[in-house]
């Protein structure tokens, strides 16, 4: 039993030591106190399940000490030691909490027995209390466990009545804690489920073995319940059943999805256009999907069980592939050729992986093959086209090269190779421009963005100008390169610039020339006017002499006067013509429009010119058609016709006819006059209508005339919106034509007066 702490409170030192020795020998842990105060102080520090108390103490009464001890540890037992036992004292002591008393002189055996009994009683009490405490803690632990779990936990009796349920289950059933006691399971579940559940509960009750129960409520929630027996620890009989109910709705759903995913994957594999085959290590086809049929022409069941060597044109290829997969574990996009069932060769891109069993031993390969025949053919065609293009580039006189996105030269055509050497693989800016970094004008980034750039590069360094076209080209592997075509346009550019400069100079000259022409015209106009003024009194005086105003003259004198007058008339005519041509050139010719008859103008002109024709023995033949009136300046048109008739007479051979005709041609009247004279050459026709550019000035002088008549005629006809031209056969005849529209389109302010 031993080691129970015992406090001895005894004022008699000898007695105290004796008791101490005896109890210590018995194995108790003993402490002693000589006074009541000392005892209480010890009791406050330490627990003493058994105290031996001498009732007669020097300081405090034994009863007071007892009370004090009880206050410190109510469970402690006190044994009173008293020399004079009186009934009153004993009762008082028991009242104060003592468990028994021993009379002095002490019978040691009795004391030891009493101490032992008291000590054992205390220890029993202590053990019981500790057990109760532990139970309480355990209960709390289980309760909190039960309450904190996500699962529903409840207890049912043999009749499936609820004995307990945790918060989770309460909230699931929508109950409060005071509502469930004694209510049956079936009140909250379907009849069918309740029946099945009851069966399971019965089973647990009868066998004492746990059971499972799955249940799906009407809201599609699934629960998995574990039923465990609660056994009486003594009898081993089942007293209740605990149920742990797990919500497995989510789990079920995930399971379903997994199943569906598996189906889905199977579907994909089955419906894949690619051939998926499983080939074992011996090269025998073990599995295959339907997709294979489309590519290879074999049904899965035709291929399964056969060696895969038969599918390759070179059976050794099957071994090679197997070797590769074994070595690397996985191969990707391996290009090979296979033979279709119909014997046709097709290109496939194959990816394959090694299959291993649980122990890591290879058991086969799974292969996915895709028909890439079209791609391969396309690539071939692209490559051929590229080769063709390269051939074209090679023969071009322009420089052609391509660089990768990291400035590496990929291609140079012949022209460039001859100029720079072969630099394929070198960095473009280093070899072409002797730079350490990309050129500032480089268009690589634009081209990489997909833009085509055309620009002009003026190299000050080389003093050349280049026309560059830079464009992205996509390589077979998808990379983009910059293709540059450039042409030396230095010569062309220089020429263009030269032409531009010349044009500018010419423009300036034209401006100058226009000013000069205007000045010339104005000068002519002014001088002509000034020339006429002195002519006026000269003519007047000579006429007076000729008319005899100043007396009678001899015949010789008169001839002299007439000669001067004739030349004066010529001079006057010249001045008048110059004035006219000046007006025409300045655009200042004024016409007096009226309704008029061309035929009348022709008749008048012929009448005026007839004496002159007669002199040369020339007959003027007129063939005048009936014509509508036109709108025109009759005086000016008569001047034109007179001039043409006069010219015709002048250039006619003697005694020939001059033919004058008028006719209507469409919406115009046309005049023509033909002479049978020297004719006009083609080149002269051009000059004919230009002022001061006589075909032959000496001829003109000889025949009389100013050389301005046709230029004036042209000006006048043009002012009538008409045309004037000449047709001629050199040495035979010339015909001058003009035509004037019958209806004039004249601006409002120039509207003719039509009488």
């Amino acid at each position: 039993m031993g080691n129970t702490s015992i406090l001895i409170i005894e004022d008699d030192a000898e007695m105290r030591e004796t008791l101490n020795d005896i109890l210590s020998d018995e194995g108790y842990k003993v402490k002693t106190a000589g006074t009541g105060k000392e005892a209480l102080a010890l009791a406050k520090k330490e627990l003493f399940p058994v105290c031996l108390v001498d009732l007669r103490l020097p300081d405090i009464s034994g009863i007071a000490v007892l009370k004090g001890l009880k206050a410190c540890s109510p469970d402690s037992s006190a044994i009173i030691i008293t020399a004079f036992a009186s009934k009153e004292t004993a009762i008082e002591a028991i009242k104060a909490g003592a468990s028994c008393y021993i009379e002095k002189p002490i019978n040691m055996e009795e004391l030891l027995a009493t101490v032992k009994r008291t000590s054992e009683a205390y220890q029993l009490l202590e053990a019981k209390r500790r057990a109760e405490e532990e139970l309480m803690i355990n209960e709390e632990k289980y309760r909190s466990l039960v309450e904190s779990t996500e699962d529903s936990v409840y207890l049912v009796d043999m009749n499936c009545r609820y004995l307990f349920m945790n918060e989770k289950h309460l909230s699931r059933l929508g109950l409060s804690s005071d509502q469930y006691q004694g209510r049956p399971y079936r009140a909250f579940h379907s009849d069918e489920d309740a029946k099945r559940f009851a069966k399971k509960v019965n089973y647990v009750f009868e066998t004492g073995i746990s059971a499972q129960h799955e249940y799906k409520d009407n809201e599609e929630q699934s629960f998995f319940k574990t039923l465990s027996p609660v056994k009486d620890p003594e009898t081993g009989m089942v007293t209740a059943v605990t149920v742990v109910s797990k919500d497995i709705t989510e789990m079920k759903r995930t399971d379903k999805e997994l199943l569906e995913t598996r189906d889905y994957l199977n579907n994909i594999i089955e419906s894949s256009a690619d051939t998926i085959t499983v080939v074992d290590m011996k090269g025998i086809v073990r599995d295959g999907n339907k997709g294979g049929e489309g590519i290879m022409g074999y049904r899965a069941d035709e291929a399964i069980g056969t060696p895969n060597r038969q599918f390759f044109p070179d059976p050794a290829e099957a071994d090679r592939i197997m070797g590769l997969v074994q070595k690397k574990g996985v191969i990707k996009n391996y290009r090979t050729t296979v033979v279709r069932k119909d014997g046709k060769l097709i290109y496939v891109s194959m990816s394959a992986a090694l299959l291993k069993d649980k122990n890591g031993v290879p058991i086969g390969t799974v292969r996915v093959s895709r028909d890439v025949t079209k791609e391969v053919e396309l690539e071939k065609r692209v490559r051929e086209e590229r080769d063709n293009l390269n051939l074209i580039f090679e023969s071009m006189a322009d420089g052609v090269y391509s660089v990768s996105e990291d400035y590496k030269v990929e291609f140079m055509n012949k022209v460039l190779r001859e100029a720079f050497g072969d630099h394929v693989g070198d960095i473009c800016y280093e070899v072409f421009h002797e730079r350490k970094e990309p050129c500032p004008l480089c268009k690589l980034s634009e081209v990489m963005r997909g833009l085509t750039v055309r620009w002009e590069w003026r190299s000050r360094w080389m003093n050349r100008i280049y026309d560059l076209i830079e464009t992205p080209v996509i390589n077979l592997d998808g990379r983009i390169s910059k293709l540059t075509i450039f042409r030396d346009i230095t010569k062309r550019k220089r020429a263009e610039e030269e032409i531009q400069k010349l044009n500018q100079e010419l423009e300036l000259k034209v401006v100058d020339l226009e000013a000069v022409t205007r000045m010339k015209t104005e000068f002519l106009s002014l001088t002509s006017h000034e020339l006429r003024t002195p002519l006026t009194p000269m003519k007047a005086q000579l006429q007076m002499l000729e008319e005899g105003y100043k007396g009678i003259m001899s015949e010789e004198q008169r001839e002299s006067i007439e000669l001067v007058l004739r030349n004066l008339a010529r001079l006057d005519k010249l001045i008048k013509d110059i004035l006219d041509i000046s007006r025409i050139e300045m655009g200042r010719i004024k016409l007096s429009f009226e309704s008029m008859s061309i035929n009348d103008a022709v008749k008048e002109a012929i009448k005026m010119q007839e004496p002159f024709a007669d002199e040369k023995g020339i007959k003027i033949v007129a063939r005048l058609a009936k014509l509508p009136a036109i709108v025109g300046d009759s005086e000016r048109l008569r001047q034109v016709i007179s001039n043409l008739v006069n010219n015709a007479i002048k250039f006619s051979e003697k005694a020939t006819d001059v033919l004058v005709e008028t006719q209507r041609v469409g919406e115009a009247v046309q005049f023509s006059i033909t002479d049978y004279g020297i004719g006009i050459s083609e080149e002269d026709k051009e000059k004919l209508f230009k002022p001061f550019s006589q075909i032959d000035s000496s001829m003109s002088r000889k025949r009389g005339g100013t050389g301005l008549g046709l230029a004036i005629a042209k000006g006048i006809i043009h002012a009538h919106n008409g045309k004037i031209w000449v047709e001629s056969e050199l040495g035979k005849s010339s015909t001058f034509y003009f035509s004037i529209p019958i209806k004039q389109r004249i601006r409002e302010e120039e509207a003719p007066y039509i009488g």
Partner: protein
Amino acid sequence: MLLPSRKKKIGIMTETKTVMIVDDEPDVLLSVAQILEASNYRTIKAKDGYECIDKLGGEVPDVLLLDIMMPGLTSKEIIREIEKDRSLADIKIIFLTAVHSLEAEEEGLLASKQVIDFIEKPFTVRRMLDAIGKAIEI
């Protein structure tokens, strides 16, 4: 050239008619005067616009032969002066010039009702006498 007809004066050429000639060229002035005087006209000569206006204050001619381009007063200004004076309203004005009639018209010289003809320089004696004769007849 025919100009619109005016109020016709009926009269017989019995008395001597007066023609004022205005021209800055003395030779022209002299020649014209000689031609007219030989045909029994009385002439007044003026070498420019100022002299013309001045002399018109002294005597009113029947016909005024007026040069178009002269220094000093322009013919336009002379006509404006004449039109202002009611006593000069009967004077017939004939232009005598090297300028083309259409250009003169453009200048607005033919606008005046008193301007009745236009003789281009150099003129013929016949043209001059015809023009004056017609002017007197009106």
